[in-house]
């Protein structure tokens, strides 16, 4: 083996985009072997394993950080357009280098720690926030055979590791010794715990139907096409659609995004648990929030949107890993769209929504999924499960959340 052979392999690899990442990884491993032969040693297998792991880690972190950088400017552009503004367009073409400018600004800012703060905890909070967020993307299947760790308990892993961010938010809020910080942290934790129930419930439904907790298995369960063109994604079943919407809104709440951004509602709480953070630590929080958001939306793609599967059979010429990121980009766009539309919830409305609407709806989706499964997963089951989710939806929506205006019901709290 020599270097020229390795170079010659590059165009061959590029010919089949479907397996491009996997073959690229193999190429890097061969390159390491070649380096070993250059100095005259046979590279031991554990070094190759280590290099393999490192390549995967670096690839995942790089992809997610690049996505974070692009998202931070894309979000501002879309938000601006929805408000009839231009958005950032000064730094580089179309403002694309805005994240670089932001990064330099963040890094050169003074790192302020409040005098009464618990300095150690104040320091470790951003790290505790970022580490779970960077661990989460590990289990997502990005393409056929492209999953870093194929865990048999992947979904459970996701929620178990995701629980770490709650601890981090508490650390940040408590260690700042600031009433806005602690109030924001309490709100954030209350919100995350409340919305974790529908989140986990809707994931559990998918796990039950797919018969596995492994993300790869769930994606494979959604493969194939009904009638030759209709994808078997779970989002196209009534229970799956309901669970997908529930999961989507719970994911919004979990990642503290608008309209669930009460924990850092600037008009009420300055910036919540981020109040006392500046400079690089704030950037870490920001990064963790976005990477966590991508991870949880990647899970949504995996659970409901068919993961790396193409939506139509003739579109399979686009490589599977592209489909994953296309779907993820669409979800990211929809997040900004929702942010541009919805006003912030009031805290009692938010809690009411979680416990009185989302949780019962997730149970309804569970029953509906059971009906769909036992009716043979055909059109009959489709109809039954549609009825089973529609009835609770309209009942809950009409009786709990539609305001029935009437002059007699109006109570004045303060004017009398």
């Amino acid at each position, binding site marked *: 083996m020599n270097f020229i052979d390795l170079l010659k392999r590059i165009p061959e690899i590029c010919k089949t985009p479907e397996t491009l990442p996997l073959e690229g990884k193999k190429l890097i491993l061969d390159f390491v072997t070649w380096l070993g032969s250059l100095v005259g040693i046979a590279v031991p297998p554990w070094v190759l394993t280590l290099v393999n792991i490192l390549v995967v880690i670096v690839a995942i972190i790089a992809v997610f950080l690049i996505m974070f950088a692009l998202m931070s400017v894309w979000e501002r552009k879309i938000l601006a357009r929805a408000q009839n503004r231009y958005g950032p367009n000064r730094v580089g073409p179309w403002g694309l280098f805005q994240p670089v400018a932001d990064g330099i600004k963040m890094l050169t800012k003074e790192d302020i720690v409040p005098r009464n703060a618990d300095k150690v*905890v104040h320091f470790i909070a951003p790290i505790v926030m970022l580490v779970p967020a960077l661990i989460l993307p590990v289990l997502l299947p990005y393409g056929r055979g492209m999953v870093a760790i194929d*865990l*048999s*308990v992947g979904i*459970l*892993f996701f*929620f*178990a*590791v*995701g*629980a*770490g961010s*709650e*601890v981090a938010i*508490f*650390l940040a809020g*408590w260690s700042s010794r600031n009433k806005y910080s*602690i109030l924001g942290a*309490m709100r954030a*934790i209350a919100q995350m*715990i409340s919305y*974790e129930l529908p989140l986990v419930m809707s994931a559990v439904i998918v796990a039950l139907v797919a*018969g*596995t*907790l492994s993300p790869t298995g769930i994606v494979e369960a959604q493969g194939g096409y009904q009638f030759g063109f209709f994808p078997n994604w779970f989002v196209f079943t009534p229970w799956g659609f309901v669970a997908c919407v529930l999961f989507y809104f719970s994911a919004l709440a979990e990642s503290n995004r608008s309209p669930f951004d009460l924990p850092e509602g600037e008009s009420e709480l300055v910036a919540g648990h981020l109040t006392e953070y500046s400079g690089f630590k704030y950037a870490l929080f920001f990064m963790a929030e976005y990477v966590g958001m991508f991870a949880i939306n990647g899970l949504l793609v995996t659970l409901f949107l068919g993961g790396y599967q193409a939506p139509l059979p003739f579109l399979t010429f686009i490589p599977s890993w592209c489909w994953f990121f296309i779907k993820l980009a669409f979800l990211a766009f929809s997040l900004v769209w929702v942010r541009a539309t919805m006003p912030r919830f009031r805290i009692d409305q938010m809690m009411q929504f979680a416990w009185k609407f989302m949780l019962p709806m997730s149970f309804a989706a569970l029953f509906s999924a059971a009906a769909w499964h036992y009716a043979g997963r055909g059109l009959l089951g489709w109809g039954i499960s549609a009825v089973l989710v529609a009835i609770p939806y309209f009942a809950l929506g009409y009786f709990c959340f539609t305001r029935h205006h009437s002059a007699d019901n109006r109570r004045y709290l303060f004017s009398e």
Partner: protein
Amino acid sequence: MHELFQKIIALPWDQAPQWLFLIPAFVMLMGAAAAVMLRNLIHCALCLTLSFIALGVLFMALGAEFVGFVQLLVYVGAVAMLILFAILLTPAGEVAASNNPLRNFKFSRAFAAAGGATVALLVLVSLLGAIFFSPHARAVVPPAQAAIAPVKAIGENLLNHTLLPLQATAILLTAALIGAALLAKEEKKS
């Protein structure tokens, strides 16, 4: 020196990976010690969280992946948060004159601490003695299995062999949920 080196070389290094669980075990014990010793309650709870995380990792290292993740999910996500909330909701008020019978005794605090430590130490010594020196300790332990607990097997076990306990646990958890909500609810002043 040379002999020592030779001995170290001769150790069964190929079995080293199966002793890697000592790392999370060490972290867990340190976390537990800090949780017990520290003065600041929040710090205690945070060290307890660290200890729980390390315990979960230890479970995974011992081959019980599912239990490890459940441990993380339940303890880190719920119990630790609950404890932290409880600490924040119960601020230490002014210490009024207590009706503690031991309060007249000047060294009551130190005495209680010493007594508790003695009891704990005695329990530890007896446990370690039982583990290492009892006749059963010399019983043949089957070798560590490549113990794998597939999720499917756990699920089938839960719904077949342990269905009744599962239902009982469900009822208990519901009762605990309602009971905790009722207990912690503010009493209305009539």
